[in-house]
């Protein structure tokens, strides 16, 4: 791994281990344009020609300040938000709306409160895998409850669970339908630091075990560096664009303790924070 010259953040060659091989392009977004109408004024342009590519089995983090357009970008990929220009393709198919090839994990879990843990996961499985037999679907639901270690809580309803447990249900629900692309919008943002760390590790384990392609939206630099292969830093002056793409040079599987002692991690962390500060000042200047 090379040491950092100036500029501090340079694309570094990523050395990939055997169980972490990147494939071809899975997500290709070209020339994305997005604006929100503003009452009695010029439209608020969020993106004006943004390009983004994510490869199969890649873990990409989208990092940026609040209001920089992270959620909008993710929701456009999910098909939940309309696109005003450009194209998004996932697995070679044009995105025109929500679809079961792209599952979303929500910051506030989005569990249906009248359904049990099992019922929430079953709702998604039944809908997506209607062509499978009932017992096959039962098995998939059971498997995924076990995957997030919620067997004992399977019959409980969301309000009986802690935040961390709720998000594990969200993760199980999303993975149970075996999407090509897993989209996460600040999934751990509402959790305490310890639960957060444990879930980061669990998500990484699932990432390794299932060769899942993941796009994670976060505003937490440590989280992005711990988990992602690549960090897309959004820069919002005027409209949002990709400020920089940071290749994260650490081998998988990652170990948070080892990383914390790693000098390169600290350097990269500091440089990323500086970059975010710079973008933040820029954004404040355009706003004010």
């Amino acid at each position, binding site marked *: 791994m090379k040491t950092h010259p100036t500029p501090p953040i340079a694309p570094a060659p990523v050395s990939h281990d055997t169980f972490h091989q990147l494939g071809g392009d899975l997500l290709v977004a070209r020339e994305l344009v997005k604006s929100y109408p503003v009452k009695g004024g010029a439209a608020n342009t969020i993106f004006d020609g943004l390009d983004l590519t994510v490869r199969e089995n890649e873990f990409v983090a989208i990092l940026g300040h609040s209001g920089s357009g992270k959620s909008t970008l993710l929701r456009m990929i999910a098909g*939940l938000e309309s696109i005003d220009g450009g194209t998004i393709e996932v697995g070679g198919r044009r995105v025109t709306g*929500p679809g079961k090839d792209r599952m979303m994990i*929500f910051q506030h879990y*989005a569990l*249906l409160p009248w359904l049990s843990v099992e019922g929430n996961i079953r*709702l998604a499985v039944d*809908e997506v895998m209607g062509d499978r037999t009932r017992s096959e679907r039962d098995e998939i639901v059971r498997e995924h409850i076990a995957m997030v270690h919620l067997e004992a809580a399977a019959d409980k309803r969301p309000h009986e669970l802690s935040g961390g447990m709720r998000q594990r249900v969200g993760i199980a629900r999303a993975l149970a339908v075996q999407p090509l692309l897993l989209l996460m919008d600040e999934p751990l943002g509402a959790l305490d630091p310890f639960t957060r760390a444990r879930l980061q590790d669990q998500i990484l384990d699932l990432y390794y075990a299932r060769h899942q392609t993941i796009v994670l939206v976060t505003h937490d630099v440590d989280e992005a560096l711990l988990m992602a292969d690549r960090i897309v830093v959004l820069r919002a002056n005027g409209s949002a664009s990709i400020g920089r793409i940071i290749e994260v040079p650490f081998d998988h599987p990652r170990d948070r303790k080892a990383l914390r002692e790693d000098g390169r991690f600290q350097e990269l962390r500091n440089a990323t924070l500086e970059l975010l500060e710079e973008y933040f000042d820029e954004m404040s200047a355009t706003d004010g």
Partner: protein
Amino acid sequence: MSHIVPGRRGARAGAPYLRPLLPLVGFALLLALWWFAATFLTNLMPGPITALRANLDYLANPFHVRGPGDIGVGFLLLQSLQRVLIGFALGSVVAIPLGFLIGLSPLARSMFDPLVQVLKPVSPVAWLPVALAVFNLANPSAIFVIFITSLWPTVINTAVGVAGVPKDYLAVARVVEMPRWKQIVRIVLPAALPYIFTGLRISLGIAWLVIVAVEMLTGGQGIGFFVWDEWNRLNLSAVFLAILLIGLTGLLLDLAIGRIQAAFTWAPEG
């Protein structure tokens, strides 16, 4: 039971097993006031004891039929209850879908919301002449007024509940490509159910209020006309009995719908 004043130290130091007796104290106070008014202030109304004695026959034979003008109060209550339940059921069958429509479609909202806002403050009894003109019969007219009564709270609450379904719930349904009709049945309906029940509960409560007034006007058989009829015979004792029975029946109705609500909606937070 809701406590008007939370237990202070003095109350807690007292015997807690006396707590269940407090409602009785409340009723006793009312009786005392009644007795006081009847005895000392005027001789126009019977006291509690006189009223009870005068009502012994009604209490002993609630379901007697001794001719068209002399029917037990139990029967009269059941007839009023029947009108309320039929009108309420018909009203709910119209109000819930209408509330869904208004909650789901901005177009329907612009079309119907002003209408609901204008009609909602109208006392349902004002519809009675219209109903009488159309049906020419007391019973269907009373049911029609209850039908109107049952519409507004249910329409409004249903619409609020349906429009307020969290966007994330629908996003979940959309990413798994759930068809629209199924989203309405499996996501919107359960999410709005607590609101729908709130509307139904308010509707039923008002319907029970309104039926007494309607029956006073239409005559016929029912607890409302009983009140009016006994007043015309200057039999206030029976009026007091009717007030008590109407109150207890209303309470039971509310408890019943509360039970159904609890069975059909998910537990609240916590």
